[in-house]
C-alpha cells in the first residue's frame, strides 16, 4: 500500500513537518524534526528512483481523480533524477545546519528558518514531481516565498534588501510563468503536461502559442538566473545565511533548469520549436555571454560568497548551453552538469559556512592566511575550485567533457575553444582565492569577533562528504552520467 503512495508522500512529509515546527518553536527540536523529515524525504526519493528504474514512468492520481482532469504526479527518468539531487542535498544540508544557524540566525527565529526550509524543500520537490502545469506554479510560489524568508533571515541588513529585490524579480518571473500557463490553458483546455504536449503537437505554431512559449521561457529564465536576468542572484546568495545559500545554490536554480527542459523538450517538444524558432540560438548566445561576463565579474569580487554566486551564473551558462541544442550528448552534458554543479557549489558554500563561523562574512581580505589556520577547509576549497574549473579527476571535468563532445559532434570548433577559454576565467577567480589563502601571509584576522577556534564535527563531516563526492563523481560516473543519459533519452523521445 505504502509503495503506491510514495509520490504523494514525497511532498507530504516535509509539508507536514513544517507546521509542526511552528507549533513546537524550540530551536533544537525543530532542527531534529527538519533533519528527520528531510532524511525520510530523501529515502522516498531513493525508493522512487529504484521504482522508475524498473517501471519506467510512475503516475499518481491526486485525490483519485483521473488525469487529465485531476492533478497527476508523473515521474520519469528526468524528474526522478532531479528529485534525488534536491532531496539528497536537502537531507545533508539539514544535518550540517545546526551550529551554523545558531551563529548566523537569531535564536527566536530558528523555528521560522526551519519552517521556511521545509516549505522550500516541499516547493522544489513539488515543482519537480508534478505533471500539472498549474500545480507547478503553485509549488513554485511555495518555494519562492519561503526562499525570500530564508534570505531575509540573514543577519546583515543587506539581506533584507537582497530578499526584497529577489521578491520583486521572482514575482515578475512567476507572473510570466502563470501568464504562459494561462495562455496554454486557453489554447488547449488542459493543464496536464502530458496532455498539453499531445494537444500542442497537433496544432500548428500560432501567435498565442508563441506568446505562451515566450512568457514561459522568460519567466523560467528569471528563476534559473540566465545571464541578463541574473541580477537577483549575487546579493541573495551573498547575504543569506550560509546554510540557506548552500541549499539554494545547489537546488533552486537546478529545479528551474529542469522546468526549462520540461517545457522546451516535453510540452513544446512536438511543436518543432528548435527547428522553426531561434530558441536554441537565443539560449546559446545568452549562455556564452553568461560564461564570459559572469566569470569576468566574479574575478573582481571581494566578497567570496558573491564571487561564487557570479560563478554560479557562469556555470548555469554551461548548463543552458547544453540545453540549447537538441542532441543526446548535449542534453546529457547539461543534466550531468546540473548534478555536478549542485555538488560542487554545495561543497563550496558548505566550506564557506565553516569559514564564516570563524571569520564572519568571508571576504578576500579576511581569508588571507586561511591555509594555515584552517588547512583542511582550505584544501577542500581548492578541490572544489578545481572541480569548478573542470580539471580531470573532478566532477566538473565530466560535464565539460560531455559538453565539448556535444559541441564537436556539431563540428563547432570555435565553441569548444570558447568553453575552454571561459574555463580559464574560472582558473583566475579560483586562483585569487587560493592565493589569498596560501600565499599572502599578512595575518589580519586577529580582529575577528566570532573567535571559535574549532569547527563543529557534524559540519566538517558533511562538507567533506560533498568534497569527496566532487572527486568520486569525477572517477565513478555510472550514477551521474547514466542517470543523465537516461533522462536525455526520455526528453528526446518526447520531442520526436
Amino acid at each position, binding site marked *: *500500500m505504502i509503495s503506491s*503512495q510514495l509520490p*504523494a508522500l514525497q511532498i*507530504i512529509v516535509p*509539508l*507536514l513537518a*513544517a*507546521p*509542526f515546527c*511552528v*507549533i513546537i518553536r524550540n530551536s533544537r527540536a525543530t532542527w531534529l524534526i527538519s533533519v528527520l523529515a528531510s532524511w525520510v524525504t530523501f529515502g522516498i526519493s531513493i525508493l522512487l528512483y529504484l521504482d522508475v528504474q524498473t517501471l519506467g514512468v510512475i503516475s*499518481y*492520481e*491526486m*485525490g*483519485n481523480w483521473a488525469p487529465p482532469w485531476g492533478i497527476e504526479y508523473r515521474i520519469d527518468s528526468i524528474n526522478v533524477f532531479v528529485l534525488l539531487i534536491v532531496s539528497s542535498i536537502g537531507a545533508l544540508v539539514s544535518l550540517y545546519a545546526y551550529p551554523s544557524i545558531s551563529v548566523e540566525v537569531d535564536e527566536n527565529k530558528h523555528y521560522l528558518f526551519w519552517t521556511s526550509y521545509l516549505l522550500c524543500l516541499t516547493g522544489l520537490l513539488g515543482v519537480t514531481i508534478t505533471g500539472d502545469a498549474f500545480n507547478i506554479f503553485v509549488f513554485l510560489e511555495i518555494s519562492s516565498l519561503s526562499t525570500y524568508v530564508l534570505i531575509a533571515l540573514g543577519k546583515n541588513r543587506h539581506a533584507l534588501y537582497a530578499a526584497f529585490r529577489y521578491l520583486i524579480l521572482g514575482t515578475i518571473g512567476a507572473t510570466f510563468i502563470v501568464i504562459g500557463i494561462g495562455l496554454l490553458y486557453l489554447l488547449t483546455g488542459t493543464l496536464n503536461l502530458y496532455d498539453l504536449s499531445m494537444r500542442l503537437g497537433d496544432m500548428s505554431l500560432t501567435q498565442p502559442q508563441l506568446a505562451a512559449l515566450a512568457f514561459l521561457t522568460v519567466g523560467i529564465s528569471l528563476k534559473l538566473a540566465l545571464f541578463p536576468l541574473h541580477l537577483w542572484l549575487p546579493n541573495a546568495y551573498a547575504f543569506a545565511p550560509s546554510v540557506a545559500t548552500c541549499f539554494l545554490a545547489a537546488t533552486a536554480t537546478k529545479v528551474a533548469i529542469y522546468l526549462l527542459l520540461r517545457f522546451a523538450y516535453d510540452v513544446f517538444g512536438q511543436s518543432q520549436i528548435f527547428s522553426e524558432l531561434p530558441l536554441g540560438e537565443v539560449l546559446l548566445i545568452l549562455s556564452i555571454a553568461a560564461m564570459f561576463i559572469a566569470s569576468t565579474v566574479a574575478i573582481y569580487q571581494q566578497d567570496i560568497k558573491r564571487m561564487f554566486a557570479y560563478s554560479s551564473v557562469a556555470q548555469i551558462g554551461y548548463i543552458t548551453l547544453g540545453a540549447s541544442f537538441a542532441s543526446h550528448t548535449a542534453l546529457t552534458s547539461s543534466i550531468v552538469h546540473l548534478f555536478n554543479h549542485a555538488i560542487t557549489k554545495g561543497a563550496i558554500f558548505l566550506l564557506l559556512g565553516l569559514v564564516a563561523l570563524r571569520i564572519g562574512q568571508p571576504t578576500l581580505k579576511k581569508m588571507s592566511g586561511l591555509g594555515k589556520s584552517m588547512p583542511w577547509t582550505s584544501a577542500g576549497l581548492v578541490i572544489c575550485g578545481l572541480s569548478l574549473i573542470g580539471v580531470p579527476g573532478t566532477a566538473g571535468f565530466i560535464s565539460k567533457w560531455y559538453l565539448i563532445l556535444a559541441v564537436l559532434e556539431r563540428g563547432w570548433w570555435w565553441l569548444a575553444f570558447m568553453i575552454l577559454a571561459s574555463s580559464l576565467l574560472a582558473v583566475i577567480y579560483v586562483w585569487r582565492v587560493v592565493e589569498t589563502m596560501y600565499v599572502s601571509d599578512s595575518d589580519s584576522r586577529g580582529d575577528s569577533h566570532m573567535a571559535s577556534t574549532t569547527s563543529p564535527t557534524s559540519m566538517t563531516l558533511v562538507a567533506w562528504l560533498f568534497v569527496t563526492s566532487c572527486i568520486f563523481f569525477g572517477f565513478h560516473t555510472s550514477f551521474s552520467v547514466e542517470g543523465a543519459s537516461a533522462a536525455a533519452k526520455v526528453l528526446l523521445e518526447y520531442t520526436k
Partner: protein
Amino acid sequence: MKNYDRVLRVISKAMIPFIMVFALYVQFHGDYGPGGGFQAGVILAAGLIFYSLIYGLEVAKKIAPPRFIELLVATGVLLYVMVGLMGIFLGSDFLDYSVLAQDSVHGQHYGIFLVELGVGITVFSVMLTIFYMFAGRGRNP
C-alpha cells in the same frame, strides 16, 4: 482616547458581530454558494482588524494573542494535510475524500468541509499576523 470617537465605537460594536456571523456563513455555505475558506478567513480577520483599529492594538492582542494566532496558522495547514492523509489511511489516494464516509457523496462533502475549514483558519490567522506585524512595528522593538 476615552469618548473621543463614540460614533465609531458604537457602530463598530454593532457591526462586528454581523461581520463575524457573515464570515461563518461564507465559510460553511461555501459548498452551496459563492464563498469558501479563503473569503471567510479574510472576512473574519477583517472583523478583528476593524476592532483593533477602533479599540487599539493592545486590546485586540488580548482577545487574540499573537502566539495563539501563530499556532492557528499551523493548525489550519495541519488540518488540511491530515484530511488528505485520511485518504491514504483509508486505503485510497492522498486527498481522496470519497472514502471518508459510507458513500462518496457524503465523503466528498465532509472532505471539502474540513479542508475549507483548514483554509479558513490559516487565512484568518495569517491575515491577522500580517496586520499585527505591520501595526506593531516600532512599538515594542
